[in-house]
């Protein structure tokens, strides 16, 4: 459950951002999860829900987008999105590749509510996978 360590880190960043902005309540955090990261978004969300209790970010909702994998062929340099576990260059059939993207786990933005205002229900979107 490495998601617990990640959720903890996300919460602490969100609270730091809030502290930098007059300690406004955190209403949301949006993260970008690379599809090679081996992070289960629902597990991350569960860990986030558990971790936020008593943290000062009790109203915060976690939302995410998925970053697709992109690799560069070690032989011909062709950049492609691998679809299978074994990466085979569609141009030259070489295997393996350098990861260009899809290995990231990034906090993209933190949503802060106005003081006293409840978080906007409409912002509570779920997954918005890129390219789908």
């Amino acid at each position, binding site marked *: 459950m490495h998601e617990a360590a990640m959720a903890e880190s996300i919460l602490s960043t969100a609270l730091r951002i809030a502290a930098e902005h007059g300690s406004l309540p955190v209403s949301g955090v949006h993260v970008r999860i690379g599809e090679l990261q081996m992070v289960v978004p629902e597990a991350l969300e569960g860990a986030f829900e558990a971790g936020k209790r008593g943290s000062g970010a009790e109203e915060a909702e976690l939302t995410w987008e998925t970053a697709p994998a992109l690799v560069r062929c070690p032989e011909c340099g062709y950049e492609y999105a691998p679809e299978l576990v074994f990466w085979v260059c569609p141009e030259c059939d070489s295997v393996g590749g350098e990861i260009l993207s899809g290995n990231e786990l990034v*906090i993209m933005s933190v949503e802060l509510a106005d003081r006293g205002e409840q978080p906007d229900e409409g912002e509570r979107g779920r997954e918005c996978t890129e390219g789908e």
Partner: protein
Amino acid sequence: MKVNVVENVLKVNDELAAKVRERLQAAAVSAINFISAPGSGKTTLIECALRNGIGGTAIGVIEGDPDTSLDAERIAALDTPVVQVNTAGGCHLEANLIMRALESFDLESLDLLLIENVGNLVCPVSFDLGETKRVAVVSTPEGHDKPAKYPMLFRVADLVVLNKVDLLPYLDFDEEFFTNAVRKLNPGAPILRVSCRSGEGIGGWREWLRSCVRSTEIVQ
């Protein structure tokens, strides 16, 4: 109000790992991060290297486990400096734990630091410990499908050890399937066939560890 951040979630760990790397580099110590499932024989592989020695190489060991100091006791019995890190249920080691463990070593007197991660084929891959190289260990009873099922570890490994090869006659382990999967995931990673029980491959294992010592490697 939306505040754009764009910050790596593992930033704190990565920064600490960079400090560990710097500290080890200053002391000319190479660190090897051992990642595998529980029971693959990581500790025994380390014991094998320690028992036979690696040409005068001074070795320290960090043992990572959720609980007990059983592994550290095995290493200490071989007169080797060792620190047991208990993660209290945690499924992987993180750079802050390594940073703390480093304080217990006389780093200047070491050449190699062997870090045995918590047994787990998924979580440890995400956490940089400041290591120089990563070793993936698979034992034959685990099955030939492990690289295909847990690809990320094998993509980032500098060496793949196939352990317990003495058991192959008793198992339905398809070694060709295993080797092909590793080759496709990581064409550059050598595969070492080892048995700590029969001694097969132990020479190559010690040789590989020796090649990691900084004085003999091209500094990256």
